[in-house]
């Protein structure tokens, strides 16, 4: 019994990290259609903010989360204003531009903060472990899971129940018609990009106590995030949730029975096969064309 529980918990922990990293990307990609290759760098900047606030100003991780969200969201807002908004109808150029931004960000961090690996101290209140149905799991990992679900719920509510969310859904379906009904789509895009960036920053801050913090850390996360979004179906928040759960549990299980190298390869093969038969992803919303 405790084996099954701890296996499920491991999978959930993997899923929560995937969800955190993919959520921002799913929002940005779903609404604006921008393939943001600098997404991993937002994650990395979030982790560096956590490190900076902790090592220079002595802030605990929990206290700095809100600040980090606002900082990275502001940065995302700036980038949208300066670069992205000029490129909305040129998907290839946005790929190139965001990739370039990512490279520049990495080098700026390397030059200012230095290239050495950093770490962030776990909040002392969460550094213990918890017993659940006979299985032990790290309290911090459960906390990350809770935050990931909370953020997902918040995003879903905004999307579903606010008038801003309604406008977003309208823009997602057809920007030109939504604009002709008086929706300020430029403003909606800007806020979406900022919100997505802020969530990525939060993701980086939250995973920093479990991983090493380095200028290159973002590159692996952007790949994972794309995997989740593509499998779940673009424009589908529930799809993102479901696909991160599926990917997390599957790779956890495969890694337990073989090892992480094989698990990663098998998961990728499975995604390729699924995409072959369902190019729109598992949870693509049905929209009248």
């Amino acid at each position, binding site marked *: 019994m405790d*084996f099954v529980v*701890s*296996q499920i918990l*491991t999978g959930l*922990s*993997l899923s929560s*990290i995937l969800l955190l990293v993919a959520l921002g990307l799913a929002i940005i990609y779903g609404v604006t259609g921008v393939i943001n290759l600098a997404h991993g760098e937002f994650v990395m900047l979030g982790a560096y903010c956590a490190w900076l606030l902790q090592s220079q100003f002595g802030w605990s991780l929990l206290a700095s989360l809100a600040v980090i969200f606002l900082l990275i969201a502001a940065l995302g807002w700036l980038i949208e204003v300066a670069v992205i908004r000029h490129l909305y109808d040129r998907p290839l150029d946005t790929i190139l531009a965001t990739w370039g931004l990512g490279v520049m960000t990495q080098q700026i961090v390397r030059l200012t903060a230095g*290239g*050495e*690996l*950093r*770490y962030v*101290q*776990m909040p002392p209140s969460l*550094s*213990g*472990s918890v017993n659940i149905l006979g299985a*032990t*799991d*790290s309290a*911090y*990992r459960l906390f990350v899971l809770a935050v990931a679900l909370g953020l997902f719920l918040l995003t879903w509510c905004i999307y579903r129940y606010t008038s801003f969310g309604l406008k977003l859904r309208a823009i997602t379906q057809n920007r030109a018609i939504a604009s002709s009904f008086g929706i300020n789509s430029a403003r909606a895009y800007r806020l979406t990009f900022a919100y997505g960036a802020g969530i990525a920053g939060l993701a980086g801050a939250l995973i920093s*106590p*479990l*991983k*090493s913090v*380095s200028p*290159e*850390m973002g590159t*692996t996360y952007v790949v994972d995030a794309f995997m989740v979004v593509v499998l779940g179906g673009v424009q589908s928040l529930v799809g993102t949730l479901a696909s991160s759960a599926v990917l997390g549990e599957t*790779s*956890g299980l495969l*890694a*337990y029975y073989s*090892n*992480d*190298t094989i*698990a*990663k390869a098998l998961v990728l093969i499975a995604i390729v096969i699924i995409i072959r038969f369902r190019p729109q992803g598992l949870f693509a919303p049905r929209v009248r064309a």
Partner: protein
Amino acid sequence: MNRNRRNFLKAGAAAGAFSLAGFPHIWSKNASLAFAQDGEIKVGVLFSLTGTTAIIEESLNKATLMAIEEINADGGINGLKITPVVEDPASDPATFAEKARKLVLSDRCVSVFGSYTSASRKAVLPVFEKQENLFWYPTLYEGRECSKNVIYTGAVPNQQQDDFIPWLVEKFGKRWYLIGSNYIYPKEENNYCKKLLEGLGAEVIAEEYVPLGHSEFSSVINKFRSEKPNVIFSTVVGDSVVALHRQYRAAGLDPASMPMASLTTSENEVAAMGGDAAAGHFTSAPYFMVFDSPENQRFVEAYRSRWGGDKVTHFVSESAYFQIHLFRQAVAKLTAGDIGPLAIREAVKGEEYKAPQGLVKVEPENLHCWLRPKIGQCKADGQFEILTQSADWLEPNPYSAYPNQKCTAEGLREV
């Protein structure tokens, strides 16, 4: 007309061939035959100052330059100043090979000190073997190499494991979990570890490799929990080692009953993961920063006053430092006119030096070093506590996992 042109071309070609293969060649050969010129002797320093491994290689570069400065301040070698030619191979094996060629061919360095990863060593090896030059490699590595053109001053598997593995088996038990990054170094170390464990009647319950750069260890830690090994033998490297230690700690596992034993976790890695995550785990190495010897005290003090009070020394920077002094002793035995890479190699054979870790010696047969392994336990302040040290220096055997092969002065022998 036709004939004229043909003649002209012929003459031109002949002149060209002559000028290419003729005078300048003889000239340059004469002019540069002597490696020691104008009271100086040039050496190459080849550590990455940029790129992924720059952090660690920068400390090797610093230790190397410091040793050279010390020797020059002391009057050089028989009056000859050492001039370091520093190149940055940017953590890229192809650039390593290119810069090595430049140092050997156009700078005419008599030796090159450098590189950290096995991949970069393998990349420069053909350059030194083809040009009959000499490469000095300070890093611990997986062994199984027998080059006549490399002096290896870091530890090979038998030197780190011979004392370490039996000690751990006796202290903690016989159920072992081997976890490593997926490349040659961990696999070769594990080959030797398994051989030792078999001899001790211990059991390997799992041998697992994660991709380089892997940072999610929750499945691995889940397996630690359910398998309950007595010792986790970790050859995980790079940023993965930080993630592994931090997640081990977050999971609430206890180093007192399930310690991780490593051959690569030095003061440098501990600084990157935080002392809290490293505390209680074990490392085997010939050198730790806290080692108590007058030579080490001098080394640490000099390093910190030269490069900054917060800097740490570790077992690779120590070899990067003492190999320059071995070089000095070898060159000092030669007259200025005889100085050359192969003469230095012959002169360094059997040479001894009182290094920060204790007295070391270059083994004449395989050009590796006799070293003094120690076992350290990490403490929360980021330093190690040295628990045991080998009674005597330990012979280097780069083929310890392959008893039918032996590295000799004549090359690799099947026995």
